[in-house]
């Protein structure tokens, strides 16, 4: 078992989706155990694939050689169009497999407790299984069309899970918004894929990369194609200006937010750009766009996270911001930093989401104004949440520290001082809003006494995944160290695993990390001093600059802008077209034509007088005319 069986990774969960979706209600516990058992098998299989892949490392040489790519024909038209199904495993794939399988298993186990007693329990697990299958198909895809198929399938899973509580109109609206917004990006993605095919004649990613590196594309054409591709990535990974759907997506069950909207699906865009980075490297304009979009998003989302009151929304803004960090890394050309941060972020962000789920489960509240004082009531949740928060804030020695350092280093060396300073400031903001979130949720006097009175620690089935993920949030960063990598059987740390041009050893940059950490520590200290868990302090912050506060709460008014654009421009245009169709095409053209004939008949019928002299006159006139024509012709 190994890379040749990589197709089984999506096949197992999708088979279980079919079984549980159709027959789940006849199974004991609606089949949740079946889904979890299948996921456990998938984790093992993922491990086997990784081990097989690892066998190809010799020294620092990276030699996958043809053994990692398997294809069969799906559809073809003569010699002009061939669409294959293929699996491709390389270092990026390996990282993704590890993240997706582990987080999915943790979330499923957690869901047994969180979703206990909910309606459509079996359907929920079926959907989780479907999502995981689609996500795994996405990461093992060797060609872009298959990737697009999986890309849309994870979008569908996301749509159905955001709208899981569809009786709530807000959930239905959020699901719709998520689907349509990402769909706008997907239009770009599909156009990009077809443009690449048009110039290269292939959908295979490695062939396209090889062609790009040998200069087989026209540069302007390729820039346009890659920008279209990036539009898809920006939609899925909630980057400006398509970021608006992710905060609303929090309408879904919280474990779903942890799996789909923090750790896996939303990083699909990062994955796509990382996968295509060798092509982006040949068109630096497109790569710069990636960098600056990421930078703007990171900063913007962090400021919005500073004022949000819903725990899940704070985390959602944080996710958008952290995804921005990853795009900055990619824009700076460092696939290592981006994939490293993707890896660590997946663990600590899913931990934070599951922790927030635990709080919501215990209190039934999710606004920080109604929480507080939970530290003693929920020790496991509190401690693990704190670990996740510190990792997010990027404090040493937790996982987030190491990966953020890599990104800041890449930003400085490729992007320059401006990019570095902006990003470091964003990192400090991250520390600030994380401090605020932890303080307001767990410390200070409880602000809703009935919620506080009922609060209790969550059952073991929920705290166990929290502990596992907390452990990973502490230690995941060490994969950067060459010694750890060697211990695991690789040539070295992550720099030896994921790279574009050449493998590189782990470097720690005390100056860069020091400066950023100092800023973050300052932010944490400022937060500690300022909030100290008191809600009235938060209110005072609002009074300090009400307009600024309002702008942040209203998300820079972008949602309003889009809503207005859809209502006024799109629907307005649609109204005009519908009016034209009804009045011009239909009533004037079709009905008008019919009425015209009817009216002509009404008028012309008077020619039928029934009087012989009239007919005789007409006949005489006819004969004269014919005679004239005949004479004229001769």
């Amino acid at each position: 078992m190994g890379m040749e069986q990589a197709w089984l990774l999506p096949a197992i969960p999708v088979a279980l989706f079919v079984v549980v979706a159709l027959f789940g209600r006849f199974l004991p516990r609606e089949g949740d155990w079946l889904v979890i058992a299948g996921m456990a098998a998938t984790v093992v299989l993922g491990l086997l694939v990784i081990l097989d892949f690892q066998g190809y490392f010799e020294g620092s040489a990276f030699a996958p050689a043809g053994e990692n790519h398997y294809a069969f024909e799906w559809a073809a038209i003569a010699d002009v169009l061939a669409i294959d199904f293929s699996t491709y495993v390389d270092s990026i794939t390996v990282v993704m497999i590890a993240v997706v399988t582990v987080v999915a298993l943790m979330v499923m186990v957690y869901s047994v407790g969180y979703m206990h007693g909910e309606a459509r329990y079996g359907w929920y697990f079926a959907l989780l299984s479907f999502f995981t299958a689609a996500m795994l198909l996405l990461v093992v895809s060797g060609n872009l069309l298959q990737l697009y198929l999986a890309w849309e399938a994870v979008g569908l899973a996301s749509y159905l899970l955001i709208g899981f509580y569809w009786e709530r109109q807000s959930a239905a609206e959020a699901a719709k918004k998520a689907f349509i917004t990402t769909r706008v990006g997907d239009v770009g993605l599909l156009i990009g894929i077809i443009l690449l095919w048009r110039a290269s004649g292939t959908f295979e990613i490695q062939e396209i990369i090889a062609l790009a590196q040998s200069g087989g594309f026209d540069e302007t054409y390729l820039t346009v194609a890659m920008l279209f591709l990036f539009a898809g990535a920006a939609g899925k990974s909630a980057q400006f200006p398509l970021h608006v759907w992710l905060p609303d997506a929090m309408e879904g069950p919280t474990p779903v937010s942890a799996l789909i909207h923090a750790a896996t699906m939303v990083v699909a865009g990062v994955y796509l750009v990382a996968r295509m980075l060798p092509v982006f490297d040949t068109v630096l304009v497109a790569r710069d766009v990636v960098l600056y979009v990421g930078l703007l998003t990171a900063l913007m989302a962090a400021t919005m996270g500073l004022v949000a009151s819903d725990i899940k929304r704070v985390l959602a803004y944080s996710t958008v911001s952290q995804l921005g960090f990853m795009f900055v890394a990619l824009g700076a050309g460092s696939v290592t930093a981006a994939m490293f941060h993707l890896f660590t972020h997946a663990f600590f962000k899913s931990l934070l989401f599951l922790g927030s789920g635990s709080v919501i489960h215990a209190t039934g509240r999710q606004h920080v104004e109604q929480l507080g004082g939970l530290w003693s009531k929920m020790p496991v949740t509190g401690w693990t949440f704190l670990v996740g928060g510190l990792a997010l804030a990027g404090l040493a020695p937790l996982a987030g520290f190491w990966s953020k350092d890599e990104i800041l280093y890449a930003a400085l060396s490729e992007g320059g001082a401006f990019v570095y300073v902006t990003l470091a400031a964003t990192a400090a903001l991250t520390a600030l809003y994380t401090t605020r979130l932890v303080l307001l949720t767990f410390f200070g006097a409880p602000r809703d006494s009935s919620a506080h009175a009922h609060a209790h620690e969550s059952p073991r089935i929920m705290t166990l995944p929290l502990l596992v993920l907390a452990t990973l949030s502490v230690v995941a960063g060490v994969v950067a160290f060459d010694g750890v990598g060697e211990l695991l059987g690789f040539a070295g740390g992550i720099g030896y695993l994921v790279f574009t041009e050449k493998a590189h050893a782990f470097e720690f940059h005390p100056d860069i990390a020091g400066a950023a950490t100092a800023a973050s520590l300052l932010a944490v200290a400022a937060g500690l001093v300022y909030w100290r868990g008191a809600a009235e302090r938060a209110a005072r912050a609002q009074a300090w600059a009400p307009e600024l506060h309002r702008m942040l709460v209203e998300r820079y008014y972008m949602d309003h802008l889009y809503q207005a654009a859809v209502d006024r421009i799109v629907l307005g245009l649609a109204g005009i077209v519908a009016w034209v169709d009804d009045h011009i095409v239909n009533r004037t053209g079709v009905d008008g034509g019919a009425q015209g004939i009817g009216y002509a008949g009404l008028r012309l019928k008077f020619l039928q007088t029934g009087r012989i002299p009239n007919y005789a006159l007409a006949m005489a006139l006819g004969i004269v005319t014919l005679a004239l024509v005949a004479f004229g012709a001769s």
Partner: protein
Amino acid sequence: MTENDGLLLLALLLLPLGSALLLMLVPSRERSAIIALTAASSLAMFAVSVYVFLSYDYGSSEQFQGVRAWTWMENVGILGEKGIQLKVGIDGIAAAMVLLTGIITMAGTWVSWKITHRTKDFFILLYILAAGVFGTFVMLDLFFWFLLYETAVLPMYLLIAVWGSTRKEYGAMKLMMMLVAASILIFAGIFAIYTEAGLGTFDLEALFSADYPVSFQKLFFPVIAIGCGTLGGLFPLHSWSPDGHAAAPTAVSMLHAGVLMKLGAFGIIRLGFQVLPEGAEFWAPGLLTLGIVAALYGAVSALRQTDLKLMTGFSSVSHMGYVFVGLGTFNAIGITGSVLQMFAHGVMTALFFLLIGAMYDQSHDREIPHFSGMAKQMPVWAAFFVIAGLASLGLPGLSGFVAELHIFIGAFRAYPLVGGLAVLTAAITATYLLRMFAQSFFGEMHPAWSGMREMTWPERAGSAVLAGSILWLGLWPSPWIDRIAATVEGLQGVAL
């Protein structure tokens, strides 16, 4: 396919016709006999069409297979050798269309067992219509081709005017007037072709290989294209379609949008692309332009519709626009995509109309804003609706995507801008469908609809067959693509 399979092609024509005749002998009050007869007949038609589809050998060099001919008139008047024959035979395109007709006729039959008003007469007309459709797809003689084409159109008038709803007289009259007017163009085109070829025969295979001057082809291709295109919902002659669909009873809407509109596009391929290839090549950009306009225009109009059937009707205009875009690319990928789209749109839109009918029969209301939370009351119904909707908005893994992908790729090869607009249309489609889902299916249930029942078993079975086809084509399209592409690659002048 062997020559004997030609008898099965004939059977596709005779089965519905024979069933209609038998039905005339059954007394109207014997409902169970009517149901048993139509059940057997629809199953038989389905089985034969599946067999015909599968047995079409795409590896063979013979383009037309199962060819059998019986001479009816020759050497009389203007007719020469083999003047008019009953000649059957199919190519890969017709094979796909036969399968489509088999599937939809079967599902349409099942859902029509609910009809209580003049049930027998309904089925007689429905099967005459089905005979016309099957016949047009398998006929290789231009005389019978046109005869059966008209046979498929004419029963519509009675079916809508007697069994319809919402402004049915208006809808029926408009549909009939526009389609008959268009038929006059086809009629003129057919006689022009017959005369110009000067072979004294209506044999289509002979007419395909005859020589026509380029100027003649350029002059008469538009005549055929407009004539057939009207039935295919070609912009701006589409306006019979939304109103006709809105007025028609469920099974008629299914057959109508599902297969009858495809007759139009099929006619353009048969008479346009195969008989007048140089005319087709000359006019292809025009077809493409009207197609992309229709695709966008239909989708944007659908955004503003509140009647569920009108929305689906405009959606059909939009999706048929894709068919014309594919034809207009004049390359093998695009045209293959067109035929795939004819199939994909057929099963998807038939499923839409089946489901709308299942609801309307109970609610007598189709206004989208009047509904909310229907997924609570009718979960199976809503699930099927979502599948049809996702196919319609081009979700990969479902039929629509396979077809649209080929059309997009073909369009990008020929005219990248048109390709881009076509992809954009798919996003608009997502908008109007998801708005409708969020409005009508989700949210809290409106108490007015608490009396609504789930679909009946025949409706569920019909939906399952249609949804199964959507999934099959979406996940494993090779059986279709191999057959269709084998024929498309053989079209004269078409770029690979």
